C-alpha cells in the first residue's frame, strides 16, 4: 500500500511521544522526573528512556574524572588564613614545551644570586588559545598542573579576563582531590612509592641509580593510574 511507510514512521514518532509521558509517570511518585538527582542519573544513563533534555543550569551533567578543560596549577593545601599553599610547579617548562598552541608562558624564579630557582615567578595561560588537549597535565612530572572541570568561563571582556595568571590558576590540592578522587589517590600512591624507593636506595647507590629506580616505580604506577 502506498503511504504505508509514512504511517509506520508516524508510529515510531507516536511511540516516542507516549514514551516521554510513560517515563514521567514512572517518576511521578518518586519526586518527579525533572530537577531530581536520582531521576536525572537514570535519564542520562544507558538505560534512560524518553526525553533526554538537560535543564541547564538547574541540572548539570556530572563531569567524569578525565574531563579536561583549561588547566590549573596545584598547590599545597593552604595554611589557615591564606589562599594558597606552596606551589608544586618547579617551572621545568615541560608543559610550555608540549603545549600544541603554545599558550603557556612561564617565568622561572630566580635566587638572589641570579641562579634559577625551581619555582615559577609568573605563570600565564591564554585560555583563548588553549585547546584543552590535556598534554600539560599528562606530561607534567610533578603532578603540578591538572585539567580543570570548571567549564563556565564565559565573560564579557576577553581582553582582561582571558589571560589567566598564577593567582587565577592556582588551586589547592584538596580541589583536585574533590574533582578527581580516584586519579588523585593513584597519584598520591605513586608519589609515596617513588619517595620510599628513593629513600631506600639512598645509602647504597649513586644518584643516577636512584633516579632510575624512582622512574621505574613511577612508570609502573603510571599504568595503574591510567585506569582512572
Amino acid at each position, binding site marked *: 500500500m*502506498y*503511504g*504505508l*511507510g*509514512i504511517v*509506520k*514512521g508516524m*508510529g*515510531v*514518532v507516536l511511540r*516516542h511521544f507516549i514514551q516521554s509521558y510513560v517515563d514521567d509517570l514512572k517518576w511521578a511518585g518518586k519526586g518527579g522526573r525533572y530537577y531530581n538527582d536520582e531521576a536525572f*542519573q537514570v535519564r*542520562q*544513563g*544507558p*538505560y534512560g528512556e524518553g526525553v*533526554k533534555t538537560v535543564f541547564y543550569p538547574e541540572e548539570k551533567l*556530572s*563531569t*567524569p*574524572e*578525565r*574531563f*579536561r578543560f583549561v588547566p590549573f596549577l596545584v598547590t599545597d593545601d593552604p595554611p589557615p588564613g591564606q589562599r594558597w599553599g606552596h606551589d608544586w610547579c618547579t*617551572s621545568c*617548562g*615541560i608543559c*610550555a*614545551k*608540549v*603545549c*600544541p598552541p*603554545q599558550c*603557556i*608562558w*612561564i*617565568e*622561572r624564579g630566580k635566587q638572589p644570586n641570579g641562579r*634559577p630557582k625551581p619555582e615559577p615567578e*609568573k605563570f*600565564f595561560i*591564554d585560555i583563548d588559545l588553549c*585547546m*584543552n*588537549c*590535556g*598534554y600539560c597535565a*599528562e*606530561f607534567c612530572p610533578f603532578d603540578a598542573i591538572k*585539567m580543570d572541570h570548571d567549564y563556565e568561563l564565559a565573560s564579557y571582556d576577553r581582553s582582561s579576563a582571558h*589571560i589567566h595568571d598564577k593567582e587565577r590558576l592556582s588551586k589547592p590540592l584538596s580541589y583536585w582531590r574533590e574533582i578527581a578522587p*580516584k586519579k588523585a589517590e593513584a597519584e598520591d600512591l605513586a608519589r609515596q612509592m617513588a619517595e620510599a624507593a628513593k629513600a631506600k636506595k639512598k645509602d647504597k647507590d649513586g644518584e643516577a641509580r636512584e633516579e632510575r629506580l624512582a622512574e621505574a616505580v613511577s*612508570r609502573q604506577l*603510571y*599504568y595503574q593510574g*591510567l*585506569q*582512572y
Partner: protein
Amino acid sequence: MSDTTLDQTAEIPETGVVQTPAQEATAKLKELHPNIVSDDTREGYEGLIVYADSIAEVARTLRDDLGFNYLSSVTGVDYIEEGKLEVVYHLYNISRGGGPVVLKAQVDRDAPVLPSLVPVFPGADYQEREAYDMYGFHFQGHPDLRRILTWDGFNGHPLRKDWKEAFYEEDYKPFGSRWPDGSVFRAEERNPYGKNVKYPPGWVPTGDEYDVETDVYLGLSYSRDATPGLKTDKVTVNLGPQHPSTHGVFRMVVTIDGETIVDLKPVMGYLHRNHEQIGERNTFNMNMPYTDRLDYLSSMSNNLGYAITVEKLFDLSVPERAEWIRILMVELTRICNHLWALGFLLNDLGALQTPMLYYYLERELILDFFEASAGSRMMCNFMRFGGVAYDLPDEVRGTPTMKFLEELIYNRLPRVLEQGDVLMTGNEIVKARAIGVGILSPEDAIAMSAAGPLLRASGVPYDVRRAEPYSYYEYLDFDVAVRYNGDIYDRYLIRIDEMRQSLRILEQVLPHLKRTTGAPVFGEKPQYALRAPRAGEAYGRVENPKGELGYYVTAKRRGGNPERYHVRAPSFINLTTLGPMSRGHKIADVVAILGSIDIVLGEVDR
C-alpha cells in the same frame, strides 16, 4: 641501518614469490619506461621518481595496463635545500588492494611546471588546485587552475618553506619566548589587525567583489536560451556560504535553467586555517589534538590515522589491548558519524529534526563514553604513538564500563538502527526524493577518487580495512558493505549497512577487551619530545567514516617536527563528484546530494 633497508628492498623482487601488486607494477613500470622512471634512493623513501614532463604518460600506463586506477593522494613537498619542489602521487589498485605505487615528480623551485593528471584522473582536480595554491605548481592542462583554499588576494604560497605567516614567531615549536622567561603577549597585539595582511604585487584590494569572483563564474556556462516565443535566461545563483543546507560555510555556485542545474562549482576555504602549515611548525606530538579538528565528528579515527602514520615512521609497535581499544573507539566513531550523517541527510530531504534527534539519543551515549575515556566528547585526543592515552574508564555515567558498552552494542544501537529503518527507510517521500537522484557510476567514482560510503554505494567494494588492513582488522570478521545503484538512497542505505557491520566488529572486540583487562595500553612511558629515529617518509591511511583518510609525513633524522605533514581529506576529495552528480537535477536535489556525500567543513577546508 641504511644498508639493511636498501638490501631488503633489493631482495624482495629477486625472490619473486610474494610480490605485492604494487611491487609488480613498480617492476613493470621500470621495464616499460626505463628512461623516465627511476627508484627513489633517498634514505627512508620509497617509490619511483618520474621525469616530471612524462608524469601523465606514466600515470596512464599505470591506469590502463597495470590496474592502478585509483589516484588517492596528490601533494607537494618543498625541499628547499635541494632547490626542488616535489609532487607525490599515491595510486592504488582498486580490484587487488594492497599498498600504493608512489610516484614522485621533481621540478625546479623557481619554475614548477609539470603536466596535469586531470585528463587521466579527474580526481586529481581539487588536489592539484590545492597543490597550486599551497606551492605554486603550474599544472599544464588543468582545466581550472585557481586557488582553492585561500582566496585570490592571498600573497604567496603558504606551504613553501620560506613563506612566513602574519603571526610568525619561529620555524618550529616550542617557541623560545614561552620559557624560561615567558612574558605573556597576544600575537595580534604585536601585529595588529589591518597590518597583518600582505597582498600580492599588483593586487588592489578595492573591495570590488566582481574582480575577485570573475574566475569563479567564467567556467560556468551562461548562454541565452533561444527557444522561440519564450525568453529564458540561465541564471547563476550562489547557494551559500551561509546556508543551512551546506553543513557549514560552503558555497555552491550554480547555473540554473529554470530549476534545473546546468553546472555547479563548489567554492570552499572559508574555514581554512592551514592545518598543514601549523602541522609543520608543530612537534609530532602536538599534531595529535589538531587532527581532532579536521573531521570533528570523528576525531578518534583522525587520531588513529595520524598515530598509524607516525608509528610507521618511528617503527613503533602497539600493545594488544591498545589495538583493541583503538578498534572499539574507531568503530563507535563510525556509528556516531553515520548517525549524524543520516540525521542531516534526512534533514536535507525535509524530514526536519525528528529522525536526527532520535539518532542523537544514542549518539549522546557514545559521546558520554568518549568523554569518560578520553576527557572530551568530540575533541578526543586519545591515541598516542605506540598506544592510547588511557585505559578504559571504570564507569561511564554511573554504570561499569563493560556493562555500559554491552548495553550500547547489544541493545541500544541495534534498536536505533531498527527504529530508523521503520521510521525512514520505507518512507515514500524519502524514496521519491532519493531513488535515482544524484547517480554516480562506479567508473566515475573511481576516476574521481571518491572514497568511503560514496565509492561503495556506487558498487565498488573497496574498504581500506580490507584492502590494506591496519590494526587488527585482518583478524576481524566483517563484510565490506556495498550497494550498486549509486544514488542518494543507496548512500543512505550503505551507511546503515556499515553501522551494522561496525556493530558486528564491536561484538567481536568486547571479549578481547575483557580478556586483556589490566594489560598495558602503552609500550613505554610517553615521551614529551619525540624525535624521528630516521629520515624518511610515511604514508598511512585509515578507513574514516567519510572515506579514506591519509597522512603523508616526512621527517629529518633526529628531527622533532614533521618536515611535511599532509592530510588526504576524504570530504574534500569527495566533493569532486558533486558537480557531475548534480547536473540535470533540481536545486532541491543538490542539497540532498551534498548531504549524501557527507562532508565536514573542518576537513574540507583544513
